[in-house]
């Protein structure tokens, strides 16, 4: 019985006579198979992570990868003398990937057999197939986004961040401050639609309404002047987190309707949801409008309920609610009057000016 994912998320390379020609223990000057550098780079650009499972001396093998200029392409390489199935299992755990999303390539039939026996869901390929891997459907994701192109850097930044967090002796809050977090909020463009759609689909814990927005719907909303579709990215001193949030806003003269707020689980502990809401509250305050947010309670998104309520949203009725169409079944409307407050100090926020054009024009005219 096998449960393989449609696409491979991580390919694990053997080294001797697979990635490089020869055996390192016999020939310290082994060289890469020439066409494989291109294969490694192609898969990397598609957002497929790559690693190593090799029987070798770890220091020597990793140094050789450095010398050959390809070490950066391999995350969490496993070099040692244990069974390769163990290396792959460990790697899948560290990456939180299912075995069915892992693949393994090795010139030795007995190594592939060992992995196939212990981990039947892992796809195994003989070394001869290496140069044709990019042609296979399982190595060809449907869309390649900005985030897929930098997925490896995001994972590597994550490993460094986690290691530092584990070693940090102060409070969580001081650790957050030490990260130098920068949130960038921007109007979504066509290019990002794929990633936005993915976020509305995958963020079950952190999706305020559980509504999934298809790419066509999002494209229509971007074109509609009353709507704002905003994407949120975060970086810190370790590197990018990528696109981590989306806001869908419908603007009425006296009230802005937050139809959706979804953030990636990876940034919940950073206070990303609260930072987005604080910024939005200040934009609404500067525009003289109230904020109304849709919230559909589920057994998984309670943290979003807390986020809204701690950001001063309440169940109180207000005349501004009359402007909005009736909510869908099971959707609560949370409301606030939007009073300007200083933003928290843990995160720098870069964002567009959401005030209506009349207001900004009046301001520049000196009013």
């Amino acid at each position, binding site marked *: 019985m096998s449960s393989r994912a449609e696409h491979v998320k991580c390919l694990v390379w053997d080294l001797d006579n697979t990635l490089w020609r020869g055996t390192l223990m016999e020939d310290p000057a082994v060289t890469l198979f020439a066409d494989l550098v291109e294969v490694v780079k192609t898969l990397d650009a598609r957002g497929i992570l790559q690693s190593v499972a090799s029987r070798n001396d770890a220091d020597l093998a990793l140094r050789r990868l450095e010398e050959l200029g390809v070490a950066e392409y391999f995350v969490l390489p496993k070099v040692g003398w244990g069974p390769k199935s163990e290396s792959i299992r460990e790697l899948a755990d560290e990456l939180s990937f299912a075995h069915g999303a892992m693949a393994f390539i090795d010139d030795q039939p007995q190594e592939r057999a060992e992995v196939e026996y212990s981990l039947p869901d892992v796809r195994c390929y003989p070394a001869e197939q290496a140069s044709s891997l990019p042609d296979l459907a399982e190595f060809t994701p449907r869309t390649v986004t900005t985030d897929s192109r930098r997925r490896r850097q995001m994972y590597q930044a994550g490993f460094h961040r986690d290691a530092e967090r584990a070693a940090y*002796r*102060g*409070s*969580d*809050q001081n650790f*957050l*401050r030490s990260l130098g977090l920068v949130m960038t909020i921007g109007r979504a463009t066509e290019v990002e639609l794929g990633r936005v759609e993915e976020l509305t689909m995958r963020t079950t814990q952190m999706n305020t309404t559980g509504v999934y927005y298809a790419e066509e719907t999002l494209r229509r909303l971007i074109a509609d002047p009353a709507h704002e579709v905003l994407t949120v990215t975060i970086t810190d001193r370790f590197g990018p987190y990528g696109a981590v949030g989306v806001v869908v806003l419908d603007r009425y003269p006296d009230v802005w309707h937050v139809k959706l707020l979804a953030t990636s689980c990876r940034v*919940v*502990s*950073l*206070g990303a*949801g*609260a930072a987005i809401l604080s910024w939005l509250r200040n934009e609404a305050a500067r525009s003289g409008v109230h904020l109304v947010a849709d919230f559909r309670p589920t057994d998984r998104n*309670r*943290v979003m*309920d*807390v*986020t809204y*309520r*701690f950001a*001063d949203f*309440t*169940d109180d009725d207000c005349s501004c609610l009359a402007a909005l169409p009736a909510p869908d079944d099971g959707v609560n409307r949370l409301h606030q009057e939007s009073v300007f407050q200083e933003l*928290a*100090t*843990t995160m720098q926020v870069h964002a567009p000016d959401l005030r209506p054009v009349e207001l900004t024009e009046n301001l520049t005219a000196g009013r």
Partner: protein
Amino acid sequence: MTTDNVIDRDPVDSDVVAGKITAYLEAKAKAPVAHDEDLADSGLLTSMVAMEIVVFLESTFGIAVVGGDLKMRNFRTVDDMVALVARLRGDGENAGDA
């Protein structure tokens, strides 16, 4: 539902409640927390931490914190949380229906 904490249904002893909340927060903050310290100002109250505190209060004191009670003002200080727990436990027999 099982919890690590024994739910204490005795009449409210605010010192005991304050002691448990303070111990919990100090473990989180890795620093002393005064009863009247504003946790929002000191930056401890991110929504993740707020969520954890809500779950902690519910499981430790057998209360349910929902709707309008889930607001920053009820969680700004240890004293605020003690008052919230006292009010929710005093509400009657159905206070622990979470």
